[in-house]
């Protein structure tokens, strides 16, 4: 070993899967093998080189077909299988093949080099295209070319076997890459690029191992066998930690696991108060990969399935079957008694790569969610058909976001009824108990909650937007974000108003905003009488613990006291003190 102690350094990225891990780094580089680019020593070798190219083509296609089968077997919900079909079609393209063979012949170069030249030629053609989106399709051709080059090069060097129990460091990981890893032996991931929705993040979350992405150049900074700490909660990566730091993180890791383990005792228990008030607990998810963790942490149903990611991170719109492939994964699962699927809830700009034509000065107040869906009805119908078709698998609730008035919900229901009629006419079987509900997240909807309640089977309060719209603050704007406050007396009154109006009309009232998963507010929400709280699954055990540790009676009493106070500061101090008194270990870090 080197006498010089390796230098400790810290890198910060985005934590996309929580947890702390300490281990050895392993650089994963699919370009591990330097592709041999050389001139053929003898023109007589051309035939051999052409055969080598054709064999690599064949092998690449076989690998893609295997990958496709694997994805189909695993449900394939997220992975757009058609991309694989497109790649296979490119590999079979006569022009692509002929051009590469011609390069080998005329330039007398290795097959790797010849493929590279072909790619270069296409690159030049695509570079001339004006349309950003179509120009970007070069990436598909490059992907195919790279795959062929890898297969050619691997004929010389077998890919290195990956050791077990390491932290994988990579630029980015594709499904094909993770398929190569002994994934159950990986401790964590750290990558140069990526975001919450990248493949690395999804895989890490589904395996519940820590991952940090968007570290910019960790592949350039870290070497295989370096000691490394990954904190997937905060997005911090520490390379070559000194013993002091290592000890601290060992402790943090233990605390993290212990905290989880302690609370996990509550996961499987019902959220029922000492005086027998039961609250249904839902999990909020955006990927079907998150379901196992939701169940594990004690979700009794899916209280909010965000469907936006079915549309994002892809090149074309999903069709009905792709929607259905996702929805059927959340409905009727063992251990989950209902699923609330929310229809598309983003701005229209997310649909089209040509962002310019959709530019809005104020997108939060713009053409989005139900407004966009009511404008683009055909597109809306595709999603509604798939949701309705999923109802045959179990208890399904369909939820429309951003409803501001009675007309919108009536129109949405009208379209839904039309779609339902079409499906029935086609002989499609539908589930018997489909409930229709709306998000309550616009102040106008609160004011007319009594009228809206007559139109639907349930409400679900989206506190994030409701608070923003009520207090007129943009949470992302750091200048005013301090005003974002769930305990603002106006916010509390609005929530109470919704619950009361809903119950008066005899319908169910849920909450699926972040407020539902913050244990400090749990007693207030129980006191309000909410029927369901739906939250990030990791938050469930603690919320259940709180609910099981209080009574409805004292929760109502606390709420009455809170509602009698007029200033936010008074409310915060009062709630903090009350919660600390009851649950000292859970709220030791709260203010004061």
């Amino acid at each position, binding site marked *: 070993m080197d006498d010089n102690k390796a230098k400790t350094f810290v890198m910060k990225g985005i934590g996309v899967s929580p947890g702390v891990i300490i281990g050895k780094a392993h650089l994963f580089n699919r370009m591990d093998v330097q592709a041999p680019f050389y001139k053929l020593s003898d023109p007589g070798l051309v035939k051999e080189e052409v055969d080598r190219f054709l064999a690599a083509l064949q092998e690449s296609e076989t690998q893609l077909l295997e990958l496709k089968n694997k994805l189909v077997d695993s449900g394939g919900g997220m992975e757009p299988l*058609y991309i694989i079909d497109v790649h296979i079609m490119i590999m079979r393209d006569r022009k692509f093949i002929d051009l590469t063979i011609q390069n080998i012949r005329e330039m007398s170069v290795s097959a790797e080099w010849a493929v590279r030249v072909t790619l270069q030629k296409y690159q030049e053609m695509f570079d001339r295209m004006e349309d950003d989106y179509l120009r970007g399709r070069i990436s598909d051709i490059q992907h195919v070319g790279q795959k062929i080059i890898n297969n050619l090069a691997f004929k010389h060097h077998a890919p290195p076997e990956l050791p077990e129990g390491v932290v994988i460091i990579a630029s980015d990981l594709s499904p094909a890459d993770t398929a190569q890893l002994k994934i159950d032996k990986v401790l964590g991931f750290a990558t140069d690029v990526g975001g919450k929705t990248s493949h690395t993040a999804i895989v890490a979350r589904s395996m519940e191992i820590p991952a940090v992405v968007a570290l910019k150049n960790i592949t350039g900074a870290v070497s295989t066998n370096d000691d490394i700490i990954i904190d997937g909660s905060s997005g911090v990566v520490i390379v070559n930690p000194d013993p002091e730091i290592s000890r601290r993180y060992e402790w943090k890791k233990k605390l993290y696991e212990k905290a989880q383990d302690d609370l996990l005792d509550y996961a499987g228990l019902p959220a029922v108060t000492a005086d027998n008030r039961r609250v249904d607990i839902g999990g909020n998810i955006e990927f079907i990969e998150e379901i196992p963790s939701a169940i594990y942490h004690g979700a009794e149903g899916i209280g909010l399935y965000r469907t936006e990611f079915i549309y994002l991170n892809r090149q074309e719109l999903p069709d009905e079957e792709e929607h259905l492939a996702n929805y059927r994964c959340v409905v009727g699962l063992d251990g989950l008694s209902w699923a609330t699927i929310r229809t598309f809830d983003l701005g229209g700009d997310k649909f089209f790569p040509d962002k310019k034509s959709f530019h809005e000065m104020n997108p939060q107040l713009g053409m989005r969610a139900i407004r966009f869906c009511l404008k683009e009805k055909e597109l809306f119908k595709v999603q509604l058909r798939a949701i309705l078709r999923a109802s045959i698998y179990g208890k399904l609730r369909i939820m429309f976001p951003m409803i501001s008035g009675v007309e919108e919900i009536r129109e949405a229901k009208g379209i839904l009824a039309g779609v339902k009629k079409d499906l029935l006419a086609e002989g499609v079987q539908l589930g018997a108990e489909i409930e229709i509900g709306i998000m309550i997240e616009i102040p106008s909807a609160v004011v007319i909650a009594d009228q809206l309640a007559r139109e639907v089977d349930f409400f679900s309060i989206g506190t994030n937007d409701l608070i923003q719209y009520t207090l007129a603050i943009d949470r992302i704007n750091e200048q005013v974000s301090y005003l974002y406050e769930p305990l603002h007396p106006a916010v509390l009154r609005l929530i109470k108003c919704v619950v009361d109006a809903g119950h008066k009309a005899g319908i169910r009232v849920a909450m699926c905003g972040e407020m539902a998963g913050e244990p400090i507010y749990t007693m207030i929400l129980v006191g309000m009488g909410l029927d369901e709280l739906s939250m990030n699954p990791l938050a469930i055990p603690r919320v259940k613990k709180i609910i099981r540790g209080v009574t409805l009676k004292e929760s109502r009493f606390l709420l009455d006291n809170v509602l009698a106070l007029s200033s936010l500061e008074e409310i915060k101090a009062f709630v903090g003190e009350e919660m600390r008194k009851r649950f000292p270990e859970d709220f030791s870090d709260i203010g004061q």
Partner: protein
Amino acid sequence: MDITKTFEIKNKLGIHARAAAKIVETANRFHADVVLEKDGYEVNGRSILDILTLYCPKGSRLTVSLTGVDAAEAMEAFSLLVDGKFGEL
């Protein structure tokens, strides 16, 4: 038999990878030769890379020429595909 028809590309994304793949799939269902023409450039309708490099964003005028015994039938399929915006917006 020889049939020619000109289409306007109406889907938002133009002829991107998936749409091009659908053209190749359609061409492969028939015996007829398929030639696509735009702005004087001609390409083979069975080559996904040819179609992509022909570069057809929304609003392009694409001429499809079919030669062969089942050209009429094939043209019906192409009309459905292209006028149906490749099943997109």
